[in-house]
């Protein structure tokens, strides 16, 4: 299964993990670093090694803020956030694996929460 997942993730993300030179600038710049079990540079290395199951089981995939900082600052154009996105999609595209359901939303809102947050969260967390 893992090989299939790896291929699928490489295809979905369009990332060439072999371009990584292991500098760690992605993890140096990541605003969610402390909230992640696996950090951006680990996503790159673990996808390379095929450790997809661990990544798919990790809460880290819901912590990426899609801020594009690692994409912007990577000196090799690896774009780790694309891998986080691809792994998350690999999970939530499965039947019944949505991370956020429409029914959950009202409880998470306050009066000022902009629509932008709701639609973005829905896009990120469910299919």
């Amino acid at each position, binding site marked *: 299964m893992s090989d299939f997942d790896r291929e699928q993730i490489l*295809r*979905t*993300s*369009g990332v060439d993990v072999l371009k990584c030179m292991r500098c760690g600038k992605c993890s140096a710049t990541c*605003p*969610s670093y402390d*909230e992640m079990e696996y950090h951006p540079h680990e996503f790159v290395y673990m996808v390379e090694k095929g450790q997809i199951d661990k990544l798919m089981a990790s809460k880290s995939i*819901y*912590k990426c*803020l*899609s*801020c*594009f*900082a690692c*994409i*912007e600052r990577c000196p090799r154009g690896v*774009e780790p*956030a*694309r891998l986080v*996105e*691809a792994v998350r*999609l690999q999970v939530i595209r499965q039947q019944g694996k949505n991370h*956020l359901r429409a029914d959950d*939303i009202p409880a*998470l*809102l*306050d009066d*000022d*929460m*902009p*629509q*932008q*947050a*709701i*639609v*973005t*969260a829905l*896009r*990120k*967390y469910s299919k």
Partner: protein
Amino acid sequence: MIFSYYPGCTLKNKAQDLDRYARLSAEALGFTLEELDEWQCCGGAYSMAKDEIASKLSSVRALNSAKAQGRDLVTLCSACHNVLKQANADMAGDAEFSLHANNYMQLDEPYHGETKVLHYLEVLRDVVGFDALKAAVKNPLTGKKVASYYGCLLLRPGKVMQMDNPENPQIMEDFIRALGATPVLYPYRNECCGGYIAMEDPALAQKKSTAVMESAADMQADCMVTACPLCLYNLQKNAVTNSQVPVLYFTELLAEALGVKG
């Protein structure tokens, strides 16, 4: 001068000020924002996945409507701006995506990224010109120290947004100068506020937006301006600092300086 205009959901709802002041200011500066008919939500976030097609079609539809009208497409919300520009770049440069998207769309003539997408700030800089804006200012905001907050979505990815240097942008600072105010430079102006994580993990959003506001406060800002409703929300709601810095939309500042705030 008339531009096609894509306001986006939030500007119709929680961020009506961002929209209202932009339209008032546009009239004062001699250009018109003509809202697209039947636009649909951009989705707030542009999926980084190559094989995600359907969720991007609403943006392609908006881009194609602007093309049909033969106008540049203007947006205000950072997120809409980010999504539209990324979708446009993919339609122009990613042949596989563009083929799939066009197949779904069934347009008379396929869309290949012909529409030029502009953020309102780019209209001010590149069409109106900051010198002309300065000349149009009725109430210069002299002495006001304003920290511009770019966040993520206005600037990144830099190669696609093509708005400004993503690590040392000047467009908002030049805008603030044109209004007669003093821009405050602070290092966190292009760091993330936490964004949509505010819904699920408010503690993280608090950490991130607090760091941003503290950085602006540290540099003695009187207020902060942003183009993004979610940034505004996070900074106003989640940032916890000793000296709470007021946060407003850049268009409000603009309308005030132009004397059209009403």
